[in-house]
């Protein structure tokens, strides 16, 4: 028997005063009011039969006192929390992980509506099998984990939590769920170190981790489950077929903006060749259709050409059924058969150029292409001191401000570009070096796309020391000479060399960049990406559930968002014109508008091949789970051979063994079932599933882990105290009635 006192010392002292008080009050109460009567003769005879014996009488007299003291004693004992170390209190600790990702919508299960319903049924059955002493926790996961019910032995609460689980359209990330489960099941330390008040450190306890999933996630091998014993309980079939749109986008032709190119990729994740039509709708009007013929496990492109200058909504639909409703192709998941894209009208960005005069730059900003993108205003550096500038800068009225050989006192609320000067804070540069020899260009950055700069001549430049988190775009022998750095949602591009330099002879070229072809391209890149013009020319697509950030005119306080179901919500615009949209679970088109005036559009599409690949993997590796299977990789020598021959050559087993495995259907090629007569290609993975795997899962489900638990008495003690209190009340009222 051990105790876990629940009160501090002074609280115990306070509690100790209570019984003393009761005794004192009792003696005070004992001083009965004297009352003179003619004779106690009759009274004595009345209470005579109550005096059966003096001990009982004395007890009876102080019964109330006794009861009160007992109540206090029980309460004190309950607060001491007496308990004992019991071994059989909790047989099992279960962590039930329920996959709610998009692939669980697949309908390849026989009895149930979907894999999700089938998984729910399995979880429900597991909950029903729980003992009274078992505890379980329920976590639903897709690309994030949600604890629906923390550890409880109450099966009804678990069932209610299970009913709360909702199918989502999100992709799968089992790692998040595993971390949540491991964190809850392996509490290394729940108390604060050095906190004298906090003395309850939960012990890490072994638990069963049951993953009810279709396995639509990569193997998780670098995750330490510690004392979680994980079991993957597969849902769905191993040969589910699916056709999925894995990419769909529409972009205006940069040459002819009224021309729009839409391009989709359709994947066939099944094991059979499929033939079907894909139909393109614009604003719900039929526009075009294309016939697709996709071999098993491969993808096909679906290009569309259309002309439209205005905004339009595009929808691509795979025609799984014909006009009579007969299926023309096998498809178990409907979610990825529709994809959305949007084309928006071009938006002009507002650019403020602060310069003493930079003809090459102004020229580059005035090309026909650039004119379509931007509205340019040129001012002299003296303008930086004016109130008008202050208003523009703090209000963020410009999308991009270019400071040519000058710098503001304070950074504006917009993207900036500095040429031959530094932002007022965070940036440093070294001594000028001459000449500047370029040694590296970051071509992957959107600002540097299509640029060929190695022939660039720069007379003088200063190596930059940008703040942390920035990207070096152009590196010379002396260091970075061009870098872009993020700043609270904005970007600052700093060019460490002048284009035009002020000398005693007047303006001279510091570089030959303006006469190179890459110069206007670079300026256009700056306008597109730093000015934000690219955002408006095509609509981005996000996976379901992702938080989308859009930029709108920062003078707006609120904007309206229309989601795919037509529901309208009003969103707050943050300072700087950003809008964060979180509720993006539903695939489709989301439109931002203000007073019916469209401001921006984005789409939510699954576009996740992993999610669309429906074949339930035979085995998923999660830490130590299911490592029973033997795997072989087909080499060059066995290329094209029949599976049995290849396995024999790989020394997987004897011929009868291999034949038995093939007959039993435990051989998988690339995690998919294989026909015994099929051939293998070089690089194929051949897996022989350990038959014991299924048994292992079963054993894991039936087995019971014995966990040391603490048997507690305080509930009973409190119950007794309440009972005593009731008895006291009854006695008291009986005495007075």
């Amino acid at each position, binding site marked *: 028997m051990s105790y876990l006192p629940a009160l501090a010392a002074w609280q115990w002292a306070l509690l100790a005063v209570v019984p003393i008080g009761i005794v004192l009050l009792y003696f005070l*109460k004992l001083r*009965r*009011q*004297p*009352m*003179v*009567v*003619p*004779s*106690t*003769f*009759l*009274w*004595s*005879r*009345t*209470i005579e039969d109550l005096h059966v014996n003096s001990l009982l009488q004395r007890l009876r007299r102080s019964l109330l006192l006794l009861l009160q003291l007992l109540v206090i004693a029980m309460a004190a004992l309950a607060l001491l929390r007496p308990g004992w170390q019991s071994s059989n209190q909790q047989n099992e600790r279960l962590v039930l992980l329920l996959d709610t990702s998009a692939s669980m919508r697949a309908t390849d299960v026989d009895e149930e509506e979907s894999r999700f319903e089938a998984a729910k049924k399995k979880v429900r059955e597991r909950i029903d099998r729980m003992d009274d002493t078992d505890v379980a926790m329920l976590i639903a996961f897709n690309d994030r984990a949600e604890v629906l019910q923390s550890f409880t032995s109450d099966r009804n609460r678990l069932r209610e939590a299970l009913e709360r689980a909702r199918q989502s359209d999100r992709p799968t990330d089992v790692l998040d769920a595993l971390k949540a489960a491991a964190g809850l099941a392996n509490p290394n330390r729940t108390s604060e170190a050095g906190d004298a008040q906090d003395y309850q450190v939960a012990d890490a306890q072994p638990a069963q981790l049951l993953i009810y999933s279709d396995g639509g996630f990569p193997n998780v091998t670098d995750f330490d489950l510690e004392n979680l014993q994980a079991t993957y309980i597969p849902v769905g079939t191993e040969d589910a077929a699916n056709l999925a749109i894995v990419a769909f986008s529409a972009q205006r032709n940069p040459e002819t903006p009224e021309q729009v190119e839409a391009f989709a990729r359709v994947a066939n994740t099944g094991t059979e060749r499929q033939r079907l039509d894909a139909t393109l709708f614009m604003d719900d009007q039929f526009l075009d259709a294309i016939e697709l013929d996709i071999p098993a496990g491969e993808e096909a492109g679906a290009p569309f050409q259309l002309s439209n200058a205005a905004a339009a909504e595009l929808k691509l639909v795979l025609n799984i059924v014909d006009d009579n409703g007969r299926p023309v192709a096998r498809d178990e998941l409907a979610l990825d058969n529709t994809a959305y894209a949007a084309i928006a009208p071009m938006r002009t960005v507002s650019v403020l150029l602060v310069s003493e005069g930079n003809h090459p730059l102004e020229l580059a900003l005035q090309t026909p292409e650039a004119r379509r993108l931007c509205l340019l205003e040129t001012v002299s550096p003296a303008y930086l001191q004016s109130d008008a500038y202050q208003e523009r800068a703090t209000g963020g009225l410009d999308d991009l401000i270019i400071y040519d050989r000058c710098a503001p006192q304070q950074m504006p609320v917009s993207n900036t570009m500095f040429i031959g000067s530094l932002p007022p804070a965070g940036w440093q540069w070294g001594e000028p070096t001459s000449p500047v020899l370029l040694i590296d260009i970051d071509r992957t950055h959107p600002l540097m796309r299509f640029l060929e700069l190695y022939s660039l001549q720069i007379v003088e430049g200063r190596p930059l020391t940008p703040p942390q988190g920035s990207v070096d775009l152009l590196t010379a022998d002396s260091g970075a000479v061009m870098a872009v750095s993020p700043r609270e949602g904005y970007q600052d591009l700093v060019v460490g060399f002048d284009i035009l330099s002020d000398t005693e002879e007047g303006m001279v070229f510091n570089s030959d960049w303006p006469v190179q072809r890459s110069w206007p391209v670079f300026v256009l890149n700056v306008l597109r990406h730093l000015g934000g013009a690219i955002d408006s020319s095509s609509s981005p697509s996000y996976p379901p559930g992702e938080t989308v950030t859009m930029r709108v005119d920062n003078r707006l306080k609120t904007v309206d968002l229309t989601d795919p179901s037509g529901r309208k919500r009003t969103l707050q615009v943050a300072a700087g014109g950003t809008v964060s949209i979180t509720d993006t679970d539903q695939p489709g088109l989301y439109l931002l508008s203000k007073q019916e005036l469209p401001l921006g559009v984005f789409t939510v599409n699954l576009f996740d091949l992993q999610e669309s690949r429906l074949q339930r993997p035979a085995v998923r590796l999660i830490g130590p789970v299911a490592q029973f299977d033997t795997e072989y990789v087909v080499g060059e020598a066995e290329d094209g051979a029949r599976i049995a021959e290849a396995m024999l050559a790989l020394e997987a087993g004897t011929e009868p063994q291999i034949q038995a495995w093939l007959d039993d259907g435990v051989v998988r090629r690339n995690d998919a079932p294989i026909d015994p007569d099929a051939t293998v290609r070089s690089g194929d993975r051949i897996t022989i599933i350990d038959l014991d795997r299924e048994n292992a899962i079963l054993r894991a489900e039936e087995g019971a882990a014995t966990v040391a638990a603490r048997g507690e008495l305080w509930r009973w003690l409190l119950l007794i105290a309440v009972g005593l209190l009731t008895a006291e009340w009854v006695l008291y009222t*009986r*005495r*007075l*009635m």
Partner: protein
Amino acid sequence: MPAAATELLPADLIARLERLELVSRRVFRGRMKGERRSRRKGQSVEFADFRNYVAGDDLRQIDWNLYARLDQLFLKLFLEEEDLHFYALIDSSESMNFGDPTKLHVAKQLAACLGYVGLCRADRVKLAALGPQGDRAPVLRGKSNLWRMLEYLDGIRPGDNGSLYEDVKRFSHRNTGTGIVVLITDLLDKQGYEQALRMLLGRRMDVYVVHLLAPEELEPPLQGDLRLVDSEDGDQAEVTVNRILLERYQRTVNAFIDTARTFCSRRSITYLLARTDMPVDQLVTRYLRERGVVR
């Protein structure tokens, strides 16, 4: 008329009492000639019997006419008329000092009424408190002694907390004559009242017991946790008075009264239960009359 006397015996009651007389179920020998017919033959105008003369008889009672006719001496016997000894014993213990009016006061009133009836009928009346105060009780005869009687009654103070038996014994030793005894008491004696009553019976008394109880004793107005203190011996009883206890007390009181009544009726003692909240004139002129104490 002194105030105390008026209180004990109001004038209008006196007028009604004069028409009453005390009833005795037995015929007692009186000491003086009175208004009652006696079993004794004696001197009166009412003829009773003849008997032979024996030597020593009063010659004045010989019927000389018979002697003349029969030449034998016969004595002519007449019915004797005698007086009645009437005693009223008042329990003056401290327990009688309860109630409103007090039991003692009602006892005095009752005694005064009965005594006055006796005085009117020329009975020998002695009203006495039990205990030492009874020693100086006067023996009274004739209406003229009413004031003495009231004076004595008025002088009785509560506080003689002797046992009933001892007090009755003391009375019996001092008063040897037989007659009517009306014992006015609350019978609340821890040693019991039985012996006292037996003692009176043994003295060949015609015993009446007027059991006086105050309403406060029959239905005590008590509630809660109390320490009851006996007014006589200071004995204490701690009780928590609740409905159940009150019911139990009621049963005890009823049983006490029943026991007393049964005890008395078995021994030809007239038992009368009187409540102090009953007006005295009604008590005497109606209640006692109905029960045959007076007529």
